[in-house]
């Protein structure tokens, strides 16, 4: 497995490299946007870890340019302050994000999650987490072995999350997938929140404390892959 680390801070690259190498990954380093774009193609990485605050280029632009050329999963590193950049990068095709500072274990988990999504589709037709199981082929949802009846919109929402299990889906991405909407956003967002609330009422053991579908504040939702 090959991982490209893009960060202008040498100490951060050093610690990321040490952690990743000790877990058996091959690591390449880039210190700026230009190098990142070069290596993103030439070194054929399996995962790219990209810092949003590079000195020479805008992180969102880099994400977009990488996406034009390849589907390599991208995990963004951001600080709490540039939340809007984070959302923009996720909308531009980044797969996940980590807020600095982060736990090494958290990073390894995110890498495993994005890699798992690269596995062939067929294996994913049955999805199970905790007591929730969804069979996409059968269009069926069960909680605790009991079938749950969902409205078509609720099922569509759950399906989008299942197909991207473990990955953050931004509000924009979900709206586009389900309603194919890009305009009249506030009304659509309201509809999304209501649908999500109803869906959680049906599948979560405690809808006040959701454990399957997690809210990513201001960004979107994420379906948990393991509890």
């Amino acid at each position, binding site marked *: 497995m090959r991982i490209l680390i893009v960060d202008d801070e040498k100490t951060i690259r050093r610690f990321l490299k040490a952690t990743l190498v000790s877990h058996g990954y091959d690591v390449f380093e880039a210190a700026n946007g230009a190098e990142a774009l070069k290596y993103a193609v030439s070194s054929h990485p399996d995962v790219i870890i990209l810092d949003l605050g590079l000195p020479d280029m805008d992180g969102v632009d880099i994400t977009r340019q990488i996406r034009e050329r390849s589907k390599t999963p991208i995990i963004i590193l951001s600080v709490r302050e540039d939340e809007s950049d984070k959302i923009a990068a996720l909308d531009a095709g980044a797969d996940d994000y980590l807020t600095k500072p982060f736990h090494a274990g958290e990073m390894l988990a995110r890498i495993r999650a994005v890699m798992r999504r690269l596995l062939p589709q067929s294996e994913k037709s049955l999805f199970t987490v905790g007591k929730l199981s969804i069979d996409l082929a059968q269009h069926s949802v069960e909680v605790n072995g009991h079938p749950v009846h969902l409205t078509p919109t609720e099922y569509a929402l759950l399906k989008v999350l299942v197909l991207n299990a473990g990955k953050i889906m931004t509000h924009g991405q979900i709206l586009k997938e389900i309603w194919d909407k890009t305009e009249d956003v506030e009304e659509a967002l309201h509809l999304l929140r209501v649908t999500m609330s109803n869906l959680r009422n049906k599948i979560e053991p405690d809808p006040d*404390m959701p454990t399957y579908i997690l809210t990513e504040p*201001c960004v979107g939702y994420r379906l948990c892959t393991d509890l």
Partner: protein
Amino acid sequence: MKKSKAKQNKIVPYFVSIALVAITTFLGGFIRGAIEPANIVIFYLLMVVMTAVWWGRYPAIMTSLLSVLAFDYFLVPPYLTFAVSDVQYVFTFIGLLAVGLVVSALTSKTRQQAMDALGREEQTAMLYRLSKDLAASDSLAAVLHAIRMNVGGIFDCRVAVFLPADHGITPGSFDHDFPIDEHENTIAAWVFRNGKPAGWATDTLPASKAHYLPLNTSQGVFGVLGVFFKGDKAGLGPGAGNLLSALASQAAVAVQRAKLTEISRQMELIRETERLQTALLNSISHDLRTPLVTIMGALSSLLQDFSSIAAETRKELLETAYEESGHLNRLVGNLLDMTRIEAGALKMKTKPCELRDVIGASLHLLKDKLEKRDIQMHIPRVLPEILLDFTLMMRVLVNLIDNAIKYSAPDTPIELAVELLENKVKIEVKDKGFGIPEEDLVRIFDKFYRAVKPRQVTGTGLGLSICKGIVEVHGGQIFAKNNPDKGVTFTVMLPLEAKET
């Protein structure tokens, strides 16, 4: 209008004087045979005195002259001629005229004095009113306002007060139709530099629109008073000029006092700020250094003696360093938040949010700490969406719940309740912990204030003040109350119609 009326008033006394003399003469005509004409003179004198008292010198002089003529013509034989048969009447005429003139001079002087006294009393009253208003003014702005109102009211004019600025002088407070332009400003600046009046109705630059007086005190010029009369007015007149200077010197003292107060208040503020900053810096550097000491110590000892340290101890050292780095991270985050709130730079991104979702996400963030805790939730199934900044409000709830966890025993429940009120939402976080001393209930929201410091509880003393800042930018309130039985309840009130940003 005013002028023609004044003219009328000036003429009226003369007509009345003529009428009075005519009436006296007419009445005298009836009795002229019965008594000595010389005795009638007394009545003429009475008229002279009355005229002098009522209208002053000139009507009185005229009355004397008319009296002599009318007396001679109508009442001294031979009648209806100015000729006199008895020479002794010439003495009567001269006497009447002389007495009339003297009486008129004396009475009119008395009258003038009385009027002056009245004028002085009025001036004193005006000065008194100004000084009262000035004394009641607690700031420079109020002082300037009082000056403008009083001077403008007394003279029926437009007023401006100029104050020294970085380069020369600037109008500190002025009536909107006071002529402020470069030329007038230059004159005001000249007055400020030279400490002498200038402008309209003076010898210096009389062509300008307004009249300018320095606000002089024994310690220098503190500003310039400008007065501007609408319409064409010839000059100020000595009375008005004196009153104006009196007002100006009183205003000067007030401006000086206000400026000195302002300076001392600023100095006080600077001192207080410096004192606070020093305290803050001490506190911050202590809080920042403590985790760093641990991290550096643990890591350096591992670097130095890695192989000789037992595996167990190595793990312990690393765990300590890791925990402390988390602490440091929280502290830096809190300091940044606090700075942003204080600088007013906290950017709210409000969107309609489901409160239930905010609470759920907050609890998820704390799930490791909450694992063994009994959380009792009372959230209505149906809640309207509220305009909130999701992440900021999450920070408030995480902070409150985290506090509840830290300041109560692990086997006690934590209660989370949401209640819909008329136009707001009440969120309560209730614990069964140690509680907070009553006198600290308000101060816990102050920066760096920590009420109870039980062992094993680390904190920066910033969390609650950040909560307060965030809740307040949402237009809400936050407060704490001890429960009747045990522990404390933190309440956040949020308006349903959150304020737009």
